[in-house]
């Protein structure tokens, strides 16, 4: 039997022989990919693109959750009989999996699921599994060394190089319209702005004034979306005991109806309790919970404003930008702006980051990945 692996000699007289180096196929160069990653407590955003150009080949928002399929699940229930699910797929199969949330308050809390999640991120960025990947990962403002080391360990062997950069600065970088930087009248957010990034685990405030923010320019408050969920959960149980609604349902209710400012009543929300549809008035419960966020953020906001240089503060007050999931709370911009105005601050202007609020940190991270010099990266061993 003729071995299938033997090649027939070429009939063309000028074809190179098998023993010539020229006959060996060229070794494919390993693709280099750059990743910008916003590792959020509830949702992560990953952007990826090849090194050397500005294409974005991957842009995904993924719930930060890993689902380990329970023992004894019948074949065919889980697509491909997978053992581990991620993101939306894990949530859609929550009856059949043990859900794990790798992060808490913006930092890795469960290393094993964090590593699995990081592997999933890698797969999203590079389905071929062959690229060398350098990743810029956002970290909460003032994250300590243990939190950073946890990220490095979770990425070791998955990414070849890593760079950890505080999220609010990345948000400013991502929000910046690079095409308008030199335009007259355009205020570059990296030159003079105050970013408020309200996520699931932390609310990070950061003064960005043309230099990399120092520790004194950043305040990280461990009160954000998840804490609001807990307050709504407690308030709901006080007002409607034994309602049986889960935190996941509470989060959905919050995302649909969250507001700050004066009480909005009635705020009727339809829920299913015990299989039956009920209408609950959640105006006060939701308002009280969300207004707590204002009570936490406002003092930090005025502290940072007070620390800005006097020749920049008036312009700064015109560039207070709210991003992250918390930017979707109705009225948060007007309430903060009114508080500043009532307290005598000069013509403050608070605005929302807009529809890309989930992506600005990751966009900034990818910009940083493209701009970073070789000697700025940390090599990940393993």
């Amino acid at each position: 039997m003729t071995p299938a692996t033997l090649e027939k000699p070429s009939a063309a007289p000028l074809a190179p022989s098998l023993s010539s180096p020229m006959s060996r196929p060229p070794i494919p160069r390993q693709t280099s990919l750059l990743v910008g990653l916003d590792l959020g407590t509830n949702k992560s955003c990953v952007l990826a693109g090849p090194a050397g150009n500005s294409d974005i080949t991957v842009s995904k928002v993924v719930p930060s959750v890993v689902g380990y399929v329970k023992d004894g699940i019948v074949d065919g229930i889980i697509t491909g009989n997978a053992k581990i699910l991620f993101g939306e797929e894990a949530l859609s199969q929550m009856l059949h999996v043990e859900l794990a949330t790798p992060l808490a308050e913006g930092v890795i809390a469960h290393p094993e699921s964090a590593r699995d999640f990081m592997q999933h991120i890698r797969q999203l960025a590079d389905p071929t599994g062959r690229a060398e990947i350098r990743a810029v990962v956002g970290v909460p403002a003032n994250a300590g060394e243990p939190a950073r080391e946890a990220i490095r360990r979770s990425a070791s062997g998955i990414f070849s190089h890593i760079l950890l950069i505080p999220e609010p600065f990345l948000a400013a970088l991502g929000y910046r319209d690079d095409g308008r930087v030199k335009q007259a009248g355009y205020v570059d957010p990296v030159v003079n702005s105050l970013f408020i990034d309200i996520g699931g685990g932390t609310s990070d405030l950061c003064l960005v004034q043309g230099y990399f923010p120092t520790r004194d320019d950043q305040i990280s408050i461990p009160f954000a979306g998840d804490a609001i969920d807990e307050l709504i959960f407690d308030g709901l149980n006080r007002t409607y005991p034994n309602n049986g609604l889960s935190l996941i349902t509470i989060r959905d209710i919050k995302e649909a109806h969250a507001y700050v400012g004066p009480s909005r009543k009635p705020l009727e929300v339809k829920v299913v309790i015990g299989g039956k549809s009920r209408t609950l008035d959640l105006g006060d419960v939701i308002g009280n919970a969300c207004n707590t966020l204002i009570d936490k953020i406002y003092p930090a906001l005025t502290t940072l404003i007070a620390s800005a240089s006097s020749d920049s503060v008036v312009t700064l007050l015109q560039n207070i930008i709210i991003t992250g999931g918390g930017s979707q709370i109705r009225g948060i911009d007007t309430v903060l702006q009114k508080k500043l105005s009532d307290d005598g601050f000069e013509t403050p202007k608070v605005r929302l980051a807009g529809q890309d609020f989930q992506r600005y940190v990751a966009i900034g991270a990818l910009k940083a990945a493209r701009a970073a010099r070789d000697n700025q990266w940390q090599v990940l061993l393993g």
Partner: protein
Amino acid sequence: MGRIYRRICFLRFDGQSGEASRLEFSELKEAVDAAKSASESTDEAESILRRLLEEEGERVSEAVAIAEVLIPMLADRIPAAIPARGPASSPLGVSHRPRIGPDPSERSIADFIDDMLVQERQPEHPISR
């Protein structure tokens, strides 16, 4: 129960033995009695409770030891770390920190990253300890 026991331990460390004893013989006793009556096996309940209280006691000891080291270090930083409820404490309520560095519009992202890396190497930076 863990919370109550931690509170008792902290009170003892703080020299408030009277209040600690009061909690021990009221709230803690009630919580322990409730846990024991809810358990099917008294021996098992006692073993679990003993382990729980030992763990909580160790946590409190470790926390106190860490606090004794951290508090002097944090003492200098507390005014900057705690958000104020109003303007800064100067009579005019303003800060005069100058903007540093070259013209920001001329700086590249890599320059900002260099700033960040320099900061991280400063001895007082949290990640360099």
